[in-house]
């Protein structure tokens, strides 16, 4: 029981407050007065609009006499972000489809096949497998050291995102400082290619025939379902050579592959994951000018830099397919013009995707950019199963440890790289 003093007199304020809780909600009933007045020709205006309380209040901060309209000091202490409405400089009234690095297709590879009209095979082409060969131990040791350097021995320490275990929702893991994924990716890939170059130099193949670009935005403009579509790829390293790659399949065999039907995604539309957006930039982007010494795209390496992505099914394979398609399409548009539909010569590229641990290798052959054609498939894609580079690379009892190194990854990369060199020669 409460031991406060009993109050005998009523507090009027309490009563008032309780009554006000109900009375403060003034109900405005519609009697049709506005219509009757307007019928008589009298203008009816909302009182608040009349008071114009939302008018911009003039700034009391100092202004230059010569430029009275310019603000010397901005009113806001925080920078203003562009609003995502019609005032945005890239606003278009007609919604268009945008595919970018962080788009994840709902059903995975089947959807990607429908978007890009591609037939998918589950092995790399025979020409690539013919280049596969065992590499000497020293090369593998170099790469293992490179893995340790990239994952564990790098000096950069950044606060990583919180570690979450879905089965223990409230549990707070100690916050980890470590290497961000983008750094691991870049370091590892550059070292792998460096090792590949030096091995090839030992076999008397000129490694300078292939040149690299890094982290440049590639943009291809196409039409999908009659709407303008923008395909963007940003997190990549591209490899250019002097001569293009020869197509992997041609003639009758190709026609036979393309006649097979695509897997069904009923009742979904193929554009379900590429939502209609009003803000997009219709500007074709490709890093290397036509006519430059190394202007033929031969390989694309794509990075997955976002940590803790929840992917299911074939979403990662779909990402690789659409990124390869983007890059090949941008290259084809540069070679044959912006409006090209069926390419006179197919554009063939090798591609690779990594999150610094799992590697996806694939080859893509682009024949047509007509995504709305009546043909089911026009392009070809060969993809291998995901290969982990290692099972564990971490500090164990303060010692850097690498376990479960997979030599297949480097051998596949060498095979792809050699095939590009062969084309160059």
């Amino acid at each position: 029981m409460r031991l406060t003093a009993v109050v005998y007199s009523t507090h009027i304020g309490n009563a008032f407050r309780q009554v006000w809780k109900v009375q403060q909600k003034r109900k405005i009933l519609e009697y049709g007065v506005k219509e009757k007045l307007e019928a008589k020709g009298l203008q009816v205006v909302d009182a608040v609009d009349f008071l114009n309380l939302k008018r911009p209040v003039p700034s009391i901060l100092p202004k230059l006499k010569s430029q009275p309209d310019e603000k010397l000091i901005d009113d806001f202490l925080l920078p203003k972000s562009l609003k995502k409405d019609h005032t945005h400089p890239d606003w278009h009234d007609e919604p268009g489809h945008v595919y970018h690095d962080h788009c994840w297709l709902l059903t995975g590879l089947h959807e990607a096949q429908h978007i890009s009209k591609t037939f998918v095979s589950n092995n790399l082409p025979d020409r690539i497998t013919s280049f596969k060969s065992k590499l000497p131990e020293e090369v593998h040791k170099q790469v293992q050291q490179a893995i340790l350097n990239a994952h564990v021995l790098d000096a950069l320490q950044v606060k990583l995102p919180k570690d979450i275990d879905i089965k223990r929702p409230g549990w707070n893991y100690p916050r980890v400082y470590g290497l961000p994924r983008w750094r691991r990716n870049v370091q590892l890939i550059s070292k792998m290619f460096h090792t590949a170059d030096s091995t090839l130099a030992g076999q008397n193949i000129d490694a300078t025939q292939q040149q690299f670009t890094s982290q440049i935005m590639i943009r291809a403009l196409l039409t999908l379902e009659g709407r303008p579509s923008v395909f963007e790829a940003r997190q990549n390293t591209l490899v250019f050579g002097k001569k293009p790659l020869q197509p992997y399949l041609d003639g009758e065999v190709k026609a036979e592959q393309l006649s097979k039907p695509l897997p069904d995604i009923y009742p979904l539309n193929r554009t379900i994951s590429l939502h209609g957006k009003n803000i997009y930039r219709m500007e074709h982007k490709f890093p290397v000018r036509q006519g430059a010494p190394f202007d033929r795209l031969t390989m694309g390496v794509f990075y997955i830099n976002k940590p803790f992505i929840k992917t299911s099914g074939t979403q990662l394979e779909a990402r690789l397919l659409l990124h390869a398609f983007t890059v090949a399409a941008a290259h084809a548009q540069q070679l044959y013009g912006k409006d090209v539909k069926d390419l006179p010569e197919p554009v063939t590229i090798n591609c690779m995707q990594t999150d610094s641990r799992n590697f996806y290798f694939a080859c893509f052959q682009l024949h047509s950019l007509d995504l709305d054609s009546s043909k089911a498939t026009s392009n070809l894609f060969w993809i291998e199963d995901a290969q982990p580079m290692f099972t564990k690379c971490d500090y164990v009892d303060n010692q850097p440890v690498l376990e479960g190194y997979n030599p297949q990854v480097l051998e596949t990369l060498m095979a792809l790289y050699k095939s590009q060199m062969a084309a160059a020669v």
Partner: protein
Amino acid sequence: MMQQLLNSFSRLCVTNNCLTFSQCMSVKFPTLSLTINTQPQLQQIRCINKLGYLTETGWRNIGNKWLVKFPEEYTVKKLPLMKLAGRDPTTGKKVYGGLGGGHKKKYRWVDNVRSGPKEGPPSVEKILRLQYDPCRSSKIALVAAGDRVRYILASSTMKVGDLISTSGHIPRNAIRPKEGDAHPLGALPVGTEVCCVEKFVGEGASIAVVAGSRALLVRKVGERCILQLPSKQELSLKQECMATVGHLSNEDHNTKHIGSPNRLRWLGFRPRSGLWHRKDGRHGRKIRPLPPIKVLDSRKSDKVIELPLTIKTFF
């Protein structure tokens, strides 16, 4: 610090509907231009303030437990949620006791309207995945068709990859119902177990939306369907009201033992105290006859504009 500054000035927002007392003051005593304008777009999601509930549209108070701002268009993205702990967001007073704390949650906007074409083939949707929802006891299903992706309440027999259909057609003879499909009550045979039933046509499911619950279609009288609710009470609804065949997922929700007082705290319930006599007073078992059947026609729509005056009292 900037956050606090913005928070303190966030009360000074004006709309067509109401004038706050503090705004009246600032009109009399003009202050620096920092105070007047609304927060930039980036800030709105981070500092949800209760008074924004009155001044902007899209806010919804869910049972004095959560406050969620719904965007204009339906989205599958998780919405930030503010816990109210049983308090009314306008007055700040406690309405329900025993609520407070608990794990942070994000709100999944579940579409509880299942409307299908009245003629022709039914609309078909594919179930992409079944998910846990912290804001409700039943599971939710991510469902897609055409260009539209949405969450719906999952019935018990739904599996990933299934195709579920929705039809608005009421045929002469009752159809053979398939679990997971949605039909108007008039199309279903008497004795069907249904869930996610609409009270008023086109409004969205409100009956039997809790884990494992089901309503029973008891009889049909002309153009009305009599439904036995989970509480055994009977309700007369129009035959065009949509219902999903089957019962809701997560049936053993109420048989799961909480296990510890900590777990109850994580769920957002504050410690309870008080004597509980199992068979006395309000806790005892009641045996009463059922009330008469309630007949629901269409929701009365009062076109009344409410102008809330939030002027603080001087007491």
